């Protein structure tokens, strides 16, 4: 008898969850409120979870105020990289003969371990990993190799 009472109590818990959630679902269905109640689902493509501010995701290359890349092709990041996924080729900057600039700056995000050492190594603050886009999936591995053009676009 005691176990029967406990079983009925259990039914009470699921019934409460059902009706509380159903109340919010009906309100949402008719666009009365946007509240979710106890529901924890995030409807992914339409609704995205907020990323944390210190999260390390895709890289980006920053530019100076006059539009040139901050990167001076010092190879610090490529040296620090444990996955060896950064490839840099330097050339002389024709307008500012004292400076170098990268001819190629390529990151293979398929190899990248997202450790952030390259960002810490950079003396010019040219490289950051704060593009808050978690979708980094492609059908082809080659499409994960990002060059200057893609790294400066975010």
């Amino acid at each position, binding site marked *: 008898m005691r176990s029967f009472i406990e079983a009925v109590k*259990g*039914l009470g818990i*699921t019934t409460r*969850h059902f009706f509380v959630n*159903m109340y919010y*679902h009906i309100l949402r269905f008719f666009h009365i409120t946007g509240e979710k109640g106890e*529901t*924890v689902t995030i409807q992914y493509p339409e609704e995205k979870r907020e990323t944390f501010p210190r999260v390390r995701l895709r890289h980006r290359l920053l530019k100076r105020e006059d539009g040139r890349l901050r990167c001076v092709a010092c190879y610090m990041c490529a040296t620090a990289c444990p996955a060896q996924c950064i490839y840099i080729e330097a050339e002389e900057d024709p307008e500012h003969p004292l400076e170098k600039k990268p001819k190629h700056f390529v990151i293979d995000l398929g190899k990248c371990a997202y450790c952030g050492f390259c960002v810490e190594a950079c003396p010019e603050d040219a490289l950051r990993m704060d593009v808050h886009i978690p979708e980094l999936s492609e059908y082809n591995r080659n499409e994960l190799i990002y060059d200057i053009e893609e790294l400066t676009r975010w």
Partner: protein
Amino acid sequence: MEWAIAIAAKVVIIFTWALLTVLYITLLERKESAVIQDRIGANRASVLGLRLNGFFQPYADALKMFFKEDYIPPFVDKPFYLLAPVIALFFALVPVGAIPVADSITLFGKKFTLSVIGSNVGVVLILSLLSLAIYGVIFGGYGSRNKYGLLGGMRAAAQIISYEVALGLSIIGVLLVFPSLDLNEIVHMQNRYILGGWVPLWGIILQPLAAILFLIAGMAENKRVPFDLPEGESEIIGYFLEYSGMKFGMFFVGDFVEILLLAALFTTFFLGGYNFPWLFADGFHFPWGNSIALSPIAVRIVQFITFNIKLWIMIWFLLLVRWTYPRYRYDQLMDLGWKSLIPLSIFNIIITAGIMAVIK
């Protein structure tokens, strides 16, 4: 000739209704479990960009089931293996035809029952067909030639046979109160009112203990979650281990048809069947004096809608039970069946019979 047309029309209409209901039981199962567990549930299936919160999901599921690879393992015992899903579905679906969805109607000078099998021994028919359904389970387990499948089948057989006793005995209490084997008659007799015409004399009011026993035994017959030892999808693999594609789908649909059947039987025996309170053959007669006259057709429509509402409430409750409890252990299952349900149902019969004898 008219007789044949009437039968054909009833078969088509009632089984279409039953299968549509079953289709949406699968959706209700997914959505209700989701809502209970603080999720949203399937809502992606769309037709022309129209999602309607998963309204089309059952059709997508059915299509998927049809187009899955139907693999027959080389070692199976083919006749039994192929027969099992057909039996499981057939003997779940046929008893649905015996349930009256509305009162019998007189058309063109002839009386038609609104159930496919308008038998005057409907209760016995349903019980006997239900006990034949066990062959689907045993053949499935035996024909798979697989140790685990066979064990699942044996567990299912033991469980169904044990609980069928309690199921039948709990119905006897109802039959003592409503002395008829005709389901339509039983529903008719529940259209009486007590306490000055305010309280309908439904089975659940006269036989509350039988209602609980019938529900528990019925769920065990269904092989659903508190009693799902024969299936045990993830751990103690069950009798349909070797089945895939639509053959598995038939077992699956058979399960859901059994839910419909159990809910319909419970509605018929204990919730007054298609009776809307105070709705009689010629319309409403309220206890406060008013009455609304309705044509016979309109009465049947109201009865059919009432039956569906009661049915869905019962289905909702059965699914709620399924998503609330964990599984019984095998000895607990047998203890519950033989040491609690059967003695209680015999007790119920004795008490009911005694009271009926005193009243008479």
